[in-house]
């Protein structure tokens, strides 16, 4: 559905994309994660035809970007990170008289689609207000509406909920969830909770390269190392040095009265660590197995790259 092969893009001395390759399966919601400057927006700009790669190729629905130009753009709906509109137009005018006709939808069909979209993104009451007066959150909703106007098979969403309040964020994420299976969505974001909620595929980008990609649950299973947190109000005595020497402990950090241990074998670690704490008569206030999150995977992989 979306295929990227060895994309390279440089801006002066900065290599924004360094041989990026990835594939997005049809009908999936692909979470495109990465720290600032990882190359997410550059990838989006290339896919939407606003920038050209220095090397490499990309396809949407088997049509190559940059070759068939306008044909590819008819297949995508794009929501940039900061959607901008003509302030003198109203929301209704922008969708009905501009965005829809540019996608070949005119007359009554454009008016009907406009009403539908304004209701979907929660802007029906602001339909006849000038866009110049819209808040950032309203502009983002409007951006989503214009991206969906022609029912595209592929949506490119760059930080679609970053400007929204919690209620707005939930509504937009719910909307994205309803589109799952129907259209393919490439969603770039830095809000990991949103990715965990709506994305079924995840790609983590760092320094212009794809560090890892796969099904969300598969990545969690593969990369999110189990973490044990132990809190002891009177200190750990010699237990920390003992724990560090155990084969199943891959790393150990301590701050104040809390020790954090990354372990390979959760079962063995729980039994052995607890027994040693009891043996050394250390008063334990908390012993907790932390569930791994996508954030842990993200931080671990991007820190490793850095």
């Amino acid at each position: 559905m979306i295929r990227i092969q060895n994309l390279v893009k440089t801006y002066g001395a900065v290599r924004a994309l360094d041989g990026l390759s990835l594939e997005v399966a049809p009908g999936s919601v692909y979470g495109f994660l990465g720290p600032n400057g990882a190359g997410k927006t550059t990838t989006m700009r290339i896919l939407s035809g606003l920038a050209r790669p220095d090397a490499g190729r990309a396809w949407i629905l088997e049509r190559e970007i940059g070759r068939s130009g306008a044909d590819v753009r008819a297949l995508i709906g794009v929501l940039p990170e900061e959607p901008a509109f003509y302030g003198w137009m109203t929301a209704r005018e922008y969708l009905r008289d501009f965005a829809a006709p540019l996608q070949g939808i005119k007359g009554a069909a454009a008016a009907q689609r406009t009403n539908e979209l304004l209701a979907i993104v929660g802007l029906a009451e602001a339909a006849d207000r000038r866009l110049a007066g819209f808040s950032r959150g309203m502009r983002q909703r409007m951006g989503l509406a214009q991206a969906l106007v022609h029912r595209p098979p592929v949506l490119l969403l760059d930080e679609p909920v970053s400007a929204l309040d919690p209620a707005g964020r939930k509504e937009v994420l719910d909307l994205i969830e309803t589109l799952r299976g129907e259209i393919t969505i490439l969603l770039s974001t830095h809000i990991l909770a949103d990715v965990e909620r709506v994305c079924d595929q995840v790609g983590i980008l760092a320094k212009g390269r794809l560090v890892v990609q796969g099904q969300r649950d598969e990545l969690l299973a593969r990369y999110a190392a189990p973490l044990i947190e132990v809190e002891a109000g009177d200190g750990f005595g010699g237990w920390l040095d003992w724990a560090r020497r155990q084969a199943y402990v891959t790393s150990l950090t301590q701050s104040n009265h809390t020790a954090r241990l990354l372990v390979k074998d959760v079962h063995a670690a729980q039994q052995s660590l607890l027994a040693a704490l009891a043996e050394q008569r250390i008063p334990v206030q908390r012993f907790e197995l932390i569930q791994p999150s996508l954030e842990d995977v993200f931080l671990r992989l991007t820190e490793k790259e850095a």
Partner: protein
Amino acid sequence: MFLTLLAKELREQWRTWKLIVFLAVFLITGLISPVLAKYTPELLGAIPNLPAGLAAMIPTPTVADAIAQYVKNTDQFGILLVLLLTMGSLAQEKERGTAAMLLTKPVRRSAVVLAKALAGMGVLLAGLLVDGLGCYAYTLVLFAALPPVAFLLLNLLIFVYLGVFLALALLASTLARNQGAAAAGAFGALIVVLVLGSLPWLSPYSPGKLVEWGVGLMQQSAFSAWPALGVALSMLALSVAAACWSLERQEI
């Protein structure tokens, strides 16, 4: 597709008051030119203690004075308005991000440029229409009827002349990434055209000769400036074509 882009441009001119301001300035220019020609000598003559010899030297105003005033005012205000109207057209869209929104849609980039060029030329034509009608009406009231065909041809030549600056400003706006650079480019192009036109060996080809030709037509002179018309139309077409070519290759 193209009609949607053109409609948006024309609607934008109307809704952002640019069209109103443009037409109002042109209308005032048209109306005031014959008035200035008629009453300036009277105003000068009314200055107290004017030496008797000097008062006698002030000529009686004629239709030719009204036309000279009209051409001078339309030329000066026209160039300024055309540059101000056009120089931000694409640079502003790039700066504000609306170009990025537009160009992710299935539109040809050259269609975007052509829509802006055509809308600009349309607004210019409307401006010259009210300008010319205002001048014609007041000249008729204050002096005599102007020869309609010659006056129409004069205005068409002014239209081509101002169209050259519109196309150059559009090119500057396309090449520039922001409005400041676009303004510098547009006014730079104006200076280059005026300086080159003042060189004796280049002046027969200067677009400025078109205005001279138009004035000559009003005076039933045999003067013509076909090479200048050829150069002006070529500059206009090449500037628009270069703007299309440039936008097709730009990263937004």
